[in-house]
């Protein structure tokens, strides 16, 4: 099979986390709201209404561009992008054209253990459109309605250069981008809810020197569907080329259920959006001081933090990656370290037990009832061998469920722990004395007998001893008894 080269560029739209819409004072919390309840004459584009910029949206967009290492243009100009569609009440979208917020940025990320880099072509802000609704209460059959609740919510559009070369890279870039916009508080980056949307341009070429025909794929609603759609599309184009055919430049829609991309309906002539500066909005100068102020609010970004975690705490790339993907997780981890500086131990707990509990409860770490202090308290007790690991895991589950602290749970559950090694030694000796047959069996080479003895000790302690410790004590006693 001949070799083919894959080139991918991504266009990502993120809803910015502002309280009000981009050009009016309507709220942005539209999820679950009845249609057209978050609207006003401005976002409905009623005759006579005028837009007034929400400066918070501009700040968040600048913050995003700065995080993506863009050059920030000294002047922000809004352009009108003219086209007709029922979800676009003014017949144009207020967007940006030749004066975007930022240009020439870069995002570094890891893909399959290797650091990659993608150039960011531009970052601009624009308003979101409404949403067509094809079924719902009060809607006659064979008709569509428009819900304008989403209309006018600020979006930041992030366009990459065609620097990605596999579906894995595209996915890993997206994961990093999502992580970044969440870190800086610009967007919640939720693809399923549509607050992060991704379109992809893909081309496949038999030659490294020449790009293939570009195909745009839309309608991917999760990271998984981006990955699947890209895999499918690459395979589709490769098959065409292998058969000697030509790939048509077109827009295709990803069909999640069928797992295929389908050519979009409608004419394929290039649309002329007749961009021109919006005369309702004056150009805005971005002052150096303002940029510096915004820059100051930038937190340490995921990749820098990951690298620091690897260096400072001697974690592996994988461990540091998981811990730093979400800012809250990384913050939680470092808050634990402040209490108890054992990075390795805390990392192990976070990556196994804490994550497991969060997944089971299906919540984010910020929503959990366990504080870093409470977790450290628990880990400390295990570390001092006051409780066994097994017991601690059970207690942690209880902590996640009730928000109780470790000592309170122990008191409440009436669990008394065999804390002293000397006490446990006594019990181990007692078990040995009571079961001479098993001792003989073990000494004659039957490994199973040891397990029986451990079981006896556990029984005598009502399961409250650390099995590992019991095993060690038994071994010590048995060898000294020889």
């Amino acid at each position, binding site marked *: 099979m001949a070799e083919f080269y894959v080139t991918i560029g991504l266009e990502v739209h993120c809803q910015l986390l502002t309280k009000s819409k981009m050009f009016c004072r309507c709220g942005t919390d539209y999820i679950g709201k009845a249609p057209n309840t978050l609207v006003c004459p401005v976002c409905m584009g009623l005759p006579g209404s*005028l837009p007034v910029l929400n400066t918070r949206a501009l700040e968040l967009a600048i913050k995003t561009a700065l995080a993506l290492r863009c050059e920030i243009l000294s002047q922000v100009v809004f352009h009108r992008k003219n086209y007709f569609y*029922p979800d676009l009440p003014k017949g144009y979208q207020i967007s940006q054209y030749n004066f975007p917020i930022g240009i020439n940025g870069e995002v570094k990320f890891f893909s399959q253990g290797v650091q990659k880099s993608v150039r960011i072509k531009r970052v601009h802000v624009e308003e979101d459109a409404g949403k067509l609704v094809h079924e719902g209460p009060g809607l006659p059959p064979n008709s569509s309605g428009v819900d304008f609740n989403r209309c006018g919510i600020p979006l930041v559009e992030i366009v990459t250069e065609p620097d990605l070369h596999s579906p894995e890279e595209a996915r890993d870039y997206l994961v990093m981008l999502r992580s970044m916009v969440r870190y800086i508080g610009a967007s919640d980056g939720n693809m399923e809810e549509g607050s992060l949307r991704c379109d992809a341009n893909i081309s496949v070429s038999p030659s490294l020197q020449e790009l293939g025909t570009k195909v745009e794929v839309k309608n991917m609603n999760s990271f998984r569907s981006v990955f699947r759609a890209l895999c499918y599309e690459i395979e589709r184009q490769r098959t065409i080329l292998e058969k000697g055919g030509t790939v048509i430049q077109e827009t295709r829609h990803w069909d999640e259920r069928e797992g295929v991309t389908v050519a979009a309906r409608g004419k394929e002539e290039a649309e*002329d959006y*007749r961009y*021109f500066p919006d005369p309702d909005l004056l150009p805005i100068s971005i002052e150096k001081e303002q940029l510096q102020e915004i820059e100051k609010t930038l937190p340490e970004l995921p990749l820098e933090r990951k690298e620091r975690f690897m260096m400072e705490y001697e974690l592996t790339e994988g461990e540091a990656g998981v811990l730093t993907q979400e800012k809250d997780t990384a913050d939680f981890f470092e808050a634990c370290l402040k209490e108890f500086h054992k990075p390795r131990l805390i990392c192990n707990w976070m990556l196994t037990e804490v994550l497991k509990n969060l997944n089971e409860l299906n919540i984010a770490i910020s929503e959990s009832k366990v504080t870093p202090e409470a977790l450290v308290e628990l880990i400390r007790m295990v570390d001092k061998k006051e409780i066994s690991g097994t017991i601690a895991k059970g207690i942690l589950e209880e902590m996640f469920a009730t928000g109780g602290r470790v000592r309170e749970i122990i008191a409440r559950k009436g669990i008394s722990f065999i804390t002293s090694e000397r006490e446990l030694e006594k019990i181990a000796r007692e078990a040995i004395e009571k079961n001479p047959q098993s001792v003989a069996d073990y000494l004659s080479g039957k490994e199973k007998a040891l397990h029986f003895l451990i079981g006896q000790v556990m029984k005598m302690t009502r399961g409250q001893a650390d099995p590992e410790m019991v095993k060690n004590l038994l071994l010590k006693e048995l060898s000294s008894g020889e």
Partner: protein
Amino acid sequence: MTVDVFREFRIRDYHERLRKKELSVGELLEAFLGRIQNVDTQIRAFLSLNEEARAQARELQENVPEGVFPPLWGIPIAIKDNICTENLPTTCGSRILENFVAPYDATVIEKLKKAGAIILGKTNMDEFAMGSSTENSAFGPTRNPFDLRRVPGGSSGGSAAALAALEAPLALGSDTGGSVRQPASFCGVVGLRPTYGRVSRYGLVSFASSLDQIGPMARNVEDCITLFEVISGSDDRDSTCAPYPPFSRQDIPPEREIRKMKVGVPREYFASGVDEAIVKKVQEILDLLEREGLECVEVSLPHTDCALEAYYIVAPAEASSNLARYDGVLYGLRGEGSTLQEMYFQTRTRGFGKEVKRRIILGTYSLSSGYYDDYYLKGMKVRTLVRRDFEEALEMCHFLITPVSPCFPFFLGERTASPYQMYLADVFTIPSAMAGIPGISMNCGYVDGLPVGLQILSGPFKEGWLFGLALFLEKALSLVSPFPRLPERS
């Protein structure tokens, strides 16, 4: 009571009678409603009347303020039909908005209501303010009260005609390229185009956003000042509105200072193509000013020629985008169609008139890729040159004085066949609109029973100077407000 007695009234005269209880708010309103009923079948200045006006008058009368009256307390006012009013239709003279009622009041309407004004109704206009004769209204033309065979000018022809026929003592118009000043001139009344950004556009249905300004119109200069004081000032709902407080008449220089000011006479505005009788009339005014001690100097605005051409690039470009929202989806007329595209086509084919379609096509063309640089961008560059013309000329003088229109009110149908002839009617009002500077249009006499308008221009935010000179001239000319003889309905 008939309106005849109000012929020379100013707002302060109404207020004096209202204060002395010689007149009630209700009687005042009824006088104008009666006049409308008597003459508007011929003039057709109004598209709709405010059914709540009587109730508002009663409410005002029941709560007569103890101290000083709010500036427009109890005064009826006519509103151009492209300014949004809650509970009253706002059609813009278009079929496409025939049944449209805005769910909100424009900022200027809020201000009028707060000042105690009573909205009489909405006035006729060229569709979406595109025209110079009111003949482009989808609901039929308005007629000039001085000669019913002639046009009242446009696009604020309804407001101007209503004032001239004494159907209203005050009115609001809008001026994009001359739409307040030219009809004020044709109807012998006073109209101000404010500095761009002096009056909030929130609630003014956009034609060309970078040019549109709401302007006060009245039967005398003083009332125009009062109305401007009420409607001007910053508005946080309009980003293009200047962050200044409302205009105050304290900014009007006293007469003795006006006499020391310098008047520029742009030679391009007195060239061929201007009716000689108009040139003569304006020259008389200039002579009078010189006699009164003002210095008059000739100045040049070299880009006057291309201002009109540039305007017909820039304004339609903005209009093509501003009018895209009339797609039949949310409000207004909706055409039938089995596909979305067909619905769009039907809606806009049936909803828009010929001139509006012409300008949408013109504007769409000049914004299209491949033409943008040659048309829209070049138009914007010419606009900068035009603005510089005025800046330079106004360094040498305080005012510019010109005719408002190169011609007298023309006959209905006279210019409808040639759009270019129609566009020429605004040749003296367009350049200053492109520059964003203020201009006032006032009557300066009559020729054969038809009013001649005088235009005074000045620099940005110099409305005080304009009013100062206009007041001075009004007095010096002993001008009386128009009261053309109209056949009343028996």
